[in-house]
Structures are given as C-alpha cells and as structure tokens.
C-alpha cells in the first residue's frame, strides 16, 4: 500500500480542504462506473478511496501521522460497482432509448449480419433485445388496478395488468415480451414505465388519498351528512357541528389497498364555502350578529 498522501498527490501538511479537493478530482477521473471500459480504474479508484479514508478523516489522519495505523488500515470491503450489472440482463431498464427506434440503425445492421445465417451452420444464438415503453394510465386505474391493452407500433397488442396501487414512474416487467431472440435465443423482456395522470381532486401520498371537500355554510355551522367520493365509490360522511375550513376528517381504510401494509386511509380536508351570492337575509343576520361576537382568526393563526 502506497503512502496515502502520495496517492492523492498532496503534501503531508496540506489542509483538509485541499485533500478533499484532490480526492474529488481523482474520484471524478477514476470512478469505475464513469470508466466502464477501463479495467484498471476499479483498483486505482479503490486505492484512492482507501487513501482518502485515512487522510480525509481528521482522527485517522492523526493516527496515521503518529504511526499508530498504517496505510492499509482502512481497506474497504469488496463492492459491486454499477458497471458490473449495467451491461447484463438487469441493465436494460435504465437504458436510454428514444421511443422504440433508438437503435433502429443498429438493428438493421444486426439483422443484416445475423439474419438467415443459420443455414451455413454457424449458429449464433442470442437473447432478444429488451424494449421499453411508456404507458400513461388514469389516476383511478393506477389506484384500483386495471387491465390495459396496448397496441404497439408494429401492430402487436400487449395485455398489461396494472397492479392495484401502482406508483407514478413505476416500471413493470413483462417477461418475454421484448424483441425475439436471434436463431432461437430467448425473447427479450418488455419494460413498461407507468405514468399516472393527475386526478381532478384526489391526490396520493404513500397509500393515503387526500382531497379537499367544499361544504356549505349551514353544513359547517350545524353539521350534517354529506356524500364523499372515494377511489372505491361514494360513502356517507358526517360533518361535525362547527366544522371549519382546514379541518381534516379521516375515512379509515378508504385509501390504496396494500396486501402487506394494510389499506391506506382517505383524508378529507373541509373547505367552508359561502353561497355564490350573499342575499339580504344573510347580510342582515351577520350585521346583527357580529358586534356581540367579535373574534380574530388572524390572531389565532399567528398572522399578526
């Protein structure tokens, strides 16, 4: 193990800030995942990391300088880098492809090279390419689960089951629905990225559903029963007497179903809404009522 200061190219008395800068510079250059084709990068990066683990840490640097630990004192455990997987079968889901055609030019070359070669005996089998699609779904389809049929640009149709509670951006893997293999090789997989469209009034947070519910002045003052939509149909809910804007009521178990965590809840935040037009009767009543019932909601809200 080399001297950690030399490894980072800094002087023994360099300030911590310089050491950090030197490390960052080397890490940017040497990180194996940023140098997928460079076999050396991994061991050099590990050496630099090990060196920084000593002299980048004030306590360890002191111990090293006093000779209490040697330069190998901070070896890191084995680690699998991203590049170890990125070109394997798992890697496909992160590949950037524009729509379906990102590699069309290369696919042409591939089929020219490998199409119909089987007759000559030089069999080459390869797994078909994975493909990825983006599938927009409605909020309620994702919340409740749905079956969708998608017609692909090549005319093939694909049945896709959207599981209950699918998140926006979630990736569904359809095994064997990708490109056919070469010469009898396995079919690739299809990856479907689900994009959930926003709903007019439901919002999802984890497995809970949130919504604002307008209530009328009489409902707010006197209380009453109202009908509230949930993702699984309407339910009756009791508004307590004196309900106010911002009050949140919980409908237990009316959120997204989750087999492991149990169902989420629906949270209904009340919004007291005055009638569109304030008629004379209401105005007269408030005029009479107000002088003896002064209250300051801004004070209570800390706005003052």
């Amino acid at each position: 193990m080399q001297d950690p200061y030399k490894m980072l190219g800094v002087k023994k008395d360099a300030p911590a800030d310089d050491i950090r800068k030197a490390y960052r510079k080397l890490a940017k250059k040497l990180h194996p995942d940023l140098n997928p084709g460079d076999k050396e990068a991994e061991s050099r990066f590990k050496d630099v990391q090990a060196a920084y683990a000593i002299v980048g840490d004030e306590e360890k640097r002191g111990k090293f300088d006093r000779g209490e630990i040697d330069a190998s004192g901070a070896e890191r455990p084995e680690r699998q880098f991203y590049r170890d997987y990125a070109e394997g079968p798992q890697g496909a889901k992160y590949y950037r492809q524009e729509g379906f055609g990102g590699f069309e030019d290369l696919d042409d070359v591939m089929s020219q090279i490998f199409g119909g070669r089987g007759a000559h005996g030089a069999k080459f089998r390869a797994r078909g390419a994975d493909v990825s699609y983006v599938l927009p779904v409605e909020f309620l389809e994702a919340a409740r689960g749905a079956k969708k049929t998608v017609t692909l640009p090549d005319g093939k149709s694909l049945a896709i089951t959207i599981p209950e509670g699918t998140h926006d951006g979630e990736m569904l893997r359809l095994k064997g629905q990708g490109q056919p293999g070469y010469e009898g090789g396995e079919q690739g997989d299809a990856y479907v990225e689900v994009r959930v469209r926003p709903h007019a009034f439901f919002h999802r947070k984890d497995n809970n559903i949130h919504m604002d519910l307008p209530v009328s002045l009489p409902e707010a003052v006197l209380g009453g029963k109202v009908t509230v939509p949930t993702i699984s149909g309407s339910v009756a809910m009791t508004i307590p007497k004196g309900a106010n804007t911002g009050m949140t009521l919980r409908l237990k178990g009316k959120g997204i179903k989750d087999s492991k965590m149990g169902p989420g809840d629906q949270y209904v935040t009340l919004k007291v809404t005055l009638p569109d037009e304030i008629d004379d009767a209401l105005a007269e009543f408030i005029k009479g009522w107000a002088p003896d019932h002064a209250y300051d909601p801004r004070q209570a809200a800390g706005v003052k």
Partner: protein
Amino acid sequence: MLTRSQLVASVEGVSGERLTYWIEMGFIVPERGEGEQQFADIDIARVRLLHDLEADLDLDTDSIALLLSLLDQVYALRSRMRVMTEAIARQPPEVREAICALLSGRLGGGEDKGGAGGGEDKGS
C-alpha cells in the same frame, strides 16, 4: 432483492429520504414486487453510484441527471456492442478475418482488440 429498509440499512450514508428523492427523480427505478418496492442488485449498485456522485464527487442534482443520462446511453451502447462482438467472435475464422479486414483502420480511438491477426489485406 432487497426491500427499501434493507437497502437503506446496507448502503452506508444513504437515507430513506434521499432514496425517495432519487426514485422521484427517476434516477432509481424499483422493481415491483407484491406490494412493497423491491430493489435488485443493479439498483443497489446504482444507489451506491449516486451516493458517490453526491458525497464524493460533490455533484448537484442537475449535473447528476445529465451525467446519468449520458452514462445510461453509454451502457446501452456498450451492451449492444457486446452482443455484436460476441456474435462476431462466434463466426468461423474466415468470416472474422473478413470483418477485421473491413474494420482495420476505420475505428478511431477505442481499445484495440487485436483481432484475428490475419486482418491485413491479403492483396487481390
């Protein structure tokens, strides 16, 4: 496969909050298990990479997004390239020689794989 909490526990320096953010940004794409999010080996390695990019390389989110986009393109291309070269490697020697002959001198820069050694023009 690891669950969310197992992943956070196994990668030093990465919080659940950070992981959620990366998932929201589309940097990490969890596998769908039954119900709970699951993370494959590649996702775990990618979380480590993201942590390196933030903590060690001091990159901000915009830079990371740009870098990941390029990186994902590089790996997609390398994967395709690998399929091609493996296919070529399985060809009979005369085919490989013919391909090497076509390629020699045309590929700028990259690693020199050496080829079959018989790639020089045999003259016509």
